[in-house]
């Protein structure tokens, strides 16, 4: 089952400003499960790319926050998730057909219960 997770950065990721609750370890775990991961944030795309590289993560995509629909068109997946901390995250996610999780809920890594992820140790 192909799953794509888009993370907002500020207020969502631990390296955001303000820091959020989603850790790099959570992102790495999702990536190890074969999920497509990346960010859709109000940070400029080139800055998002630099942030992922700085933290030694190969992001599958970076895009402006309002570019979730474009991300969806680029990647075929069974489920699309966006994690964020603002109304605008929810608004853009739902408009693009993504499932939306608030960052404070997403610290429980709900994606781990999706599809093949349930078989992991």
């Amino acid at each position: 089952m192909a799953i794509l997770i888009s993370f907002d950065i500020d207020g969502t990721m631990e390296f955001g400003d303000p820091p959020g609750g989603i850790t790099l370890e959570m992102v790495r775990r999702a990536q190890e499960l074969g999920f497509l991961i990346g960010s859709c944030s109000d940070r400029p795309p080139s800055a998002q790319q630099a942030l992922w590289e700085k933290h030694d993560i190969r992001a599958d995509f970076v895009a402006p926050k309002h570019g979730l629909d474009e991300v969806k068109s680029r990647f075929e997946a069974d489920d699309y998730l966006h994690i964020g901390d603002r109304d605008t995250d929810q608004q853009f996610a739902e408009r693009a057909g993504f499932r939306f999780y608030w960052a404070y809920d997403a610290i429980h890594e709900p994606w781990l219960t999706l599809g093949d992820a349930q078989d992991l140790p």
Partner: protein
Amino acid sequence: MPTKVPNAPESWYRTREGLGIWPHRGKVAAVGVGLSPTARRWDGRPETSVGAWSILALRKAMEDAGVSPDQVDGLVMAQDTATGSPWPPGKPVPEDFLTTFQPTDDPLDGLTRLSAEWILQNTPELTNVKFTMYGPGCMSNAIVVAAQAVGEGLTDTCLVLKGWHNLEGRYYVGQGAAAEDTIAGRAKWTTGWGTVACYPTAMHFEAYCRKYGVTRDMHAPFVVNSRKNGLLFPEGFYAQHRPEPLTVEDYLSARWIAKPASLLDNDLPICVSAAYLFTTPERARDMKQKPVYILNHASDRIKIRSVMPTLEETEECAASNARKLYEGAGITANDLSFEGMYDGFGQFHVFHLEGLGFRGVKRGDALHFFQTDISIEGWNPVSPSGGNIGSGRTRFWHHTDAIQQIQGRAGKRQIWRKAEVGVTGGPFPYGGNFTVWGATPG
């Protein structure tokens, strides 16, 4: 200490053309510069409050100028420390803040506003301040007031201060008219309906593009260049916290706030304070830094016909402002080594630049001019500070940069050509306060 600090009298502002050379041209000098660290938002600690960082900036400005606190006899500042970040109603002021500083009768003094009383109570080494006055709103205003005060002999060693705070939460959103049960005045046509702060500027820019047959993407080189310059400003927010350059693609893909103004046309609210030390040329001789002479100041008081200025009113106001600046300084546009007009919203700069006639730019030319070499390495450096786009929302990076450019200590931002005369100011092309700076008294 004065019991009631006044705003500057309206008569101090040079708001009309035809006033001739400014009587104090070259008789006021900026010498010292002091800046606090920057942060995106206040972290709740007393030592990082806007009050604490303003005191730090003042001390750094004195040290930079080589002036002892007891030599300072004047303080000019702006009381407001944000335009869209109010203290949440009912939220208690942190106890440790109240115990760290000497309060005034306003418990939010030092947190979300700054009074001269608070500054002087909490900077006890400033024992000889006899002159205090507010230049409301912006550093641009405070500079004009301080220049006039020194020129008129009301103070001869004067600190000029502006602080900015930014609390957690949304800036501007749900505030002003939108927060009221009923709305009166002009706001009933604008913010009451949810229009955002950049809406008037976006409208002007849309009209501008149609009028002159230009497109928004032609603005991208200015924004990219401004962030590039800002990353060379070690005191700035982006250089300190987000050192990634912008690309044209970043600019063109940013989401709309009010089309054709996007997220990257809007500046990022931050916490920071800046202070300058102004003095007379005679006293400046004994100070540590090279004096930067103030050649003139001018202010706009536009009268508009409707709820907001039209494009044509904006253009004419910017042009009139430039005529005032040049007339009072005894210079022409050809004398400018650089310009540092305001940019927060980015499109302001188009109107400022054309108003100045910088490098012969006429109405409708600015976006074409942005396609040429506007970098600090070229002959036509535009906004060498990077302004708010380059370093965050303060409305003072351009002033700081002008002083440092002319002193020859702008570091990696130093413009390639000799920095002899610069003009700075803001905020609006349809209303603000502006200053001409020179390497010589004129």
